[in-house]
């Protein structure tokens, strides 16, 4: 069902844990859906200096969180904002169709964290579009 890349990322996830002094925090999903993703960002200048995640969910959700956080480390906020769920899916070597929403959750959580940082800086939040939980949203691709 899962690619080896997904299983490897799931069994040995990176960037796990809470970040007490985060500059931006984003949380999406709900226990009802069976997926909650929380992303913590440390921002220096306009770059992501450090990133951590906490995820309640299936292997695809945990693998997507780990992969997405690895991808955005060192990116500018604008670059991280434009990371699509399709980029995450591609880096994971694919996800089963029923699991693509987990990757959407990862990109949503990153955008929520970026907007939290922007709000804390007194900047207007970027338009994240309307995406729901439980895969209600149309994934961009993948």
């Amino acid at each position: 069902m899962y690619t080896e890349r997904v299983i490897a990322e799931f069994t040995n996830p990176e960037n796990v844990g809470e970040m007490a002094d985060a500059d931006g925090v984003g949380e999406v999903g709900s226990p009802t859906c069976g997926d909650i993703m929380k992303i913590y960002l440390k921002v220096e200048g306009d770059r992501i200096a450090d990133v951590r995640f906490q995820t309640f969910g299936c292997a695809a959700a945990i693998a997507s969180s780990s992969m997405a956080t690895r991808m955005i480390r060192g990116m500018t906020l604008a670059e991280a904002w434009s990371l699509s769920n399709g980029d995450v899916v591609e880096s994971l070597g694919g996800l089963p169709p029923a699991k693509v929403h987990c990757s959407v959750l990862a990109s949503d959580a990153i955008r929520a964290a970026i907007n939290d940082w922007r709000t804390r800086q007194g900047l207007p939040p970027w338009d994240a579009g309307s995406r729901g939980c439980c895969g209600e949203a149309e994934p961009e691709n993948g």
Partner: protein
Amino acid sequence: MNDQADRPVYMDHAATTFMKPEVLAAMAPYFSQYFGNPSSLYRFSGEPRKGVDAARRQVAAALGANPEEIYFCAGGSEADNWAIKGVALANRKRGDHIITSAIEHHAVLHTCEWLKRQGFLVTYLPVDEFGRVDPGSVEEAITDRTTLVSVMTANNEIGTIQPVAEIGRVAHDHGALFHTDAVQAVGAVPIDVDAMNIDLLSLSGHKFYGPKGTGALYVRRGTRLENLVHGGGQERGRRAGTENVPGIVGLGRAIELATADIEGHNRRIAAMRDRLIRGVLGSIPDARLNGHPTERLANNANFSFRYVEGESILLLLDAQGICASTGSACSSGSLEPSHVLLATGLSHEEAHGSLRLTLGDANTEDDVDYVLSVLPDVIGRLRRISPLTPPGAGVREVD
């Protein structure tokens, strides 16, 4: 990785069982040696015919039924479909109401949904926190339009055993037929169709160490039931098609073995199950046992672990060579977790965090020890990742 990962610790016997060597041996001659069509008249077809007849007697004996009340088919889902559609359609002039429970297998629930689309009325009885149907609720739901009550003998997810004899009596008191899906119960719950007021009963060979693709429907003599497959005269014209002779022979041998000593089998399996349950609840905080504390299948342990999700548990166990199952939506591709767990009142989060371990004949005390050595760490790892985990709610230190 443990050395036992080389040999999978299979604890998913509610999903399917291995086939016993005795069953395979009984089936073997019927593939190439006794391959004749049982319907043919020549003597060469005598052996396959005798094989099917003997299997019918074996199934009947296991249920306290007569051989002519046993109809072979291709499995539990087919038997459920046949029983429910067959009774509903054959008795439509008498009534259009069916009563079932909220925790039935999808083979029953989706069949009832189909009948609803054909204009039938369906009542879904609720269950208590342990997954039990109250026979009193059948009494309240039943009307003079009710033709069928269908409640499973034992639940496949949480193992809860239903008071089928009482439910069957209520059905009969009101002139309705009583069907029970006994797919998980055969070999674990002693069955007597007369004493338990059962008119129709579904069973499946691969749940009790028999071959996949085999099943049977018990139909009490005189029951009005539509035929399932139209064609030749097989199964007294009710389910046409050349018999799966090796499968039927295997089913017969398997049910004979499975019901030879139910009590002794249950004693051995339940001792392992109880040690498993005590061990899990004793070593993992914020865990609960789902299902009934005592009225449950001897082989079934179903837990919910707060703050974590079942598919993740399953895959980490798989990496350690343990085969298990979950009621989490994430394992099924749907978004709703187990309807059974939700019906017992669990929250979505608790249902997502469920794990089913079902023991079987090949399991040993070593297997239980192995699971108990692996599971706390698996839950602990996932809880360290989860944002829901409150501080300190990891895993108790065990020595």
